[in-house]
């Protein structure tokens, strides 16, 4: 049972990492879109560079939601109801973005196309910011409490969001715009924008590419600075994470990999090796997410009511107290073992048709 729970923790991590790397580049492209695209041709070039793949990228988010629901239903229920308004706004941003992207090319007038551009940019920036903000709030800790409640004459142990002592008011009142969460949101935005820029550097040409590359270099510095700040703040908020990090020997290779990959991004940008820059940026993101997941294990959602959530989780949700039954985890593991390789195989073949070969179609497209 424990092995299954740990496997699912790792799988959720992998799915989130896939989402961050894949949808990250099209979200990032949307964020830097107004800064680098000067002409209508530039705009269409960027949109057609992400057009054939963005939707399939976003499916990783839906899969993350579904997998979290299936494997850790308690965490799914607590996180999404606890951060209600941010997640509703994320959904709103994803709607705006998709509508802007999908309907722009079909709009008859330049004015309507400009409005669609605007939706696409606001949605991309907003969704990324809110993802970061939600992530920051989860890492900082949610007011989760282990309680007993009565349902149909039975006393049930469950976890709910308690904003005050006696859980009479369950709506979330914690300050979402806490400075720590805000820094994580900023870091997320900068990181995703950089990732999007490396993707566009790889797929665009000419002056557009020059603008993208020079912006990418600036974002590289911003991201590095923000990462250091967030790292420092995390050790202040959760010193146990550093402890976890130090005792889990097997993650020692990850930090040097992150460092090398991240430096490679800049070197590759300077030398005009844009594919290398994109792949290095992808590895950096994978590394950072792997590092985070290994450090927080076995906690999924730390509770602010725990003295030390990472050492002694009483109210915090962990892979052990929030998971589905053994039977469900087993069935879903079989599903994942068949489904994920299948998806990756056809995704690889289809992406290869479009990869690095942007065409602006005369009709159709964006």
């Amino acid at each position: 049972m424990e092995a299954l729970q740990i496997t699912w923790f790792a799988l959720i991590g992998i799915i989130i990492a896939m989402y961050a790397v894949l949808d990250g580049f099209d979200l990032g492209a949307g964020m830097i879109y107004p800064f680098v695209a000067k002409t209508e041709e530039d705009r269409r070039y960027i949109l057609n560079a992400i057009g054939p793949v963005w939707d399939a990228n976003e499916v990783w988010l839906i899969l993350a939601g579904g997998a979290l629901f299936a494997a850790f239903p308690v965490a799914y229920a607590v996180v999404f109801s606890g951060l209600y308004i941010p997640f509703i706004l994320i959904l709103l941003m994803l709607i705006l973005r998709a509508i802007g992207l999908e309907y722009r090319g079909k709009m008859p007038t330049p004015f309507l196309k400009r409005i669609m551009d605007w939706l696409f940019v606001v949605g991309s920036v907003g969704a990324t910011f809110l993802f970061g903000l939600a992530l920051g709030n989860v890492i900082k800790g949610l007011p989760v409490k282990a309680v007993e409640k009565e349902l149909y004459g039975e006393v049930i142990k469950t976890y709910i969001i308690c904003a005050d002592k006696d859980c009479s008011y369950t709506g979330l009142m914690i300050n979402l715009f806490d400075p720590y969460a805000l820094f994580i949101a900023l870091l997320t935005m900068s990181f995703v924008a950089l990732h999007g820029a490396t993707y566009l550097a790889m797929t665009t040409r000419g002056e557009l590419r020059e603008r993208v590359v020079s912006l990418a270099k600036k974002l590289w510095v911003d991201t590095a600075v923000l990462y250091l700040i967030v790292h420092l703040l995390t050790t202040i908020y959760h010193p146990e994470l550093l402890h976890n990090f130090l005792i889990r020997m097997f993650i020692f290779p990850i930090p040097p990999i992150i460092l090398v990959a991240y430096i490679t991004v800049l070197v590759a940008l300077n030398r005009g090796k844009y594919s290398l820059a994109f792949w290095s940026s992808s590895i950096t993101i994978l590394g950072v997410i792997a590092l985070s997941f290994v450090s927080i294990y076995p906690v999924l959602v730390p509770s602010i009511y725990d003295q030390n959530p990472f050492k002694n989780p009483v109210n915090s949700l962990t892979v052990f107290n929030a998971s589905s039954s053994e039977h469900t985890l087993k069935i879903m593991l079989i599903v994942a073992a068949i489904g994920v390789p299948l998806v990756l195989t056809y995704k690889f073949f289809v992406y290869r048709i479009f990869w690095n070969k942007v065409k602006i179609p005369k009709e159709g497209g964006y």
Partner: protein
Amino acid sequence: MDSVLLARIQFALTAMYHFLFVPITLGLSLILAIIWTKWATEEDDEKRLLYERMGKFWTTLFAINFAAGVVTGIVLEFEFGTNWSEYSKTVGDIFGAPLAIEAIFAFFLESVFLGVLLFGRDRVSPKFYAFSAWMVALGTNLSALWILVANSWQQTPKGFYLENGVARLKSFLEAVINYSTPFRFSHMFLAGVITGAFFVAGISAYYLLKRRHLDFAKESFKLAVIIGMVASLLQIIVGDLHGYQVAKTQPLKLAMAEGKWETEKGAGLEILPGIEIPKLLSILAYHDPEAKVYGIHDLVKVYQKIAKGEEVSDDELPHLWLDPRQFKGRESLYITEEDLPPTWIPFWSFRGMVFLGVFFALISSLGFFYILRNDIEKRKLLLRLFVISIPLPIIANILGWVLAEVGRQPWVVYYILKTKDAASPLPAGQILTSIIIFSTIYWIVFLMFLGLMVYKVKKGPEETTVGG
């Protein structure tokens, strides 16, 4: 207003809105796959060009629909967590799986290959292009399958046990098939095919009336009407079987849909208030003219007895597949008549859906008849009916889901969890805020969707250019 009611309003709003777009894509994806296959295999150049124009035009309309369907669908994936956290915690062990499976086996398939369909016609071979269209159709309909699996488990739960107040999976296969998935998926699949077919037939009829794009319109109309006729005739059989399944699993839903308060032997069916056909309800529900149809009063009393742990004899309940007595002593079965929704909602949504269904079978059969006689262009009235009918299958779908979901009340998972115990304990203000946000953006999206559809239809398919 209390937050459970607001959460229900929000779910009804977002789910119905999502369902304005989805059924068209279910049927239209299949029609597209057929058209692109004909295109890929046709030898004759002129016909090939015709199929290409058809494929391109319907693919554009499909894309507009698909985008609206996708963006509104993602909301639903997370709504179980945001608005129904207690539901998710109680039945997540079973209910989460179909949603995850849907993402992995359906959404990836349709989104990856839709990329090919929209961007790849000059980059891949015609055969692979047609294959991609089939993969989109498969993905779209697989996604409907897994959603129907999830919803059918809520309607007629099976393959689980209750432990510490939480439902746990006992048999995956039983939970997936349960008592109603095959019936309900077939019913939804055919409904999707009818919706897509009437969408294509209606727009083609519009061109036939306007005498524009004649060859294009005739070919599209013919294809759509044949598909629509077969599906709507089959739907009459499947709909009857689905009704039989409801009678065997959810007798209270049946009683509410028929407004039957008293138990009756050889019960008649009220076609409309005041017009009753003797014995027909017993025949339809149990395929037996003398069968006893249990009324709301008696059923509620029986459920109360089961909840209190009292013995209930075989005579007090119809012969059921999903026997409530297996949950003897569980307080979730304790319901009162005040807990029930107003019966006019299931009563009228049921009748609306059935009347529309019969209407679809009639006009598509008429359309087919005139296609065979080869004078469909002259049947102005029938063509006009087809144009007006474009939104009717969508209305029938929504009525069907209203019947299914309202008819399931007061439970969210039949017998084992009440709707009022499933919502997130959120302040009403937050839910109201989200309702306002979604209603606003949905209106804007809907207007854009409609505007784009009208614009693309008025523009029409591209005309053949000589030497092209």
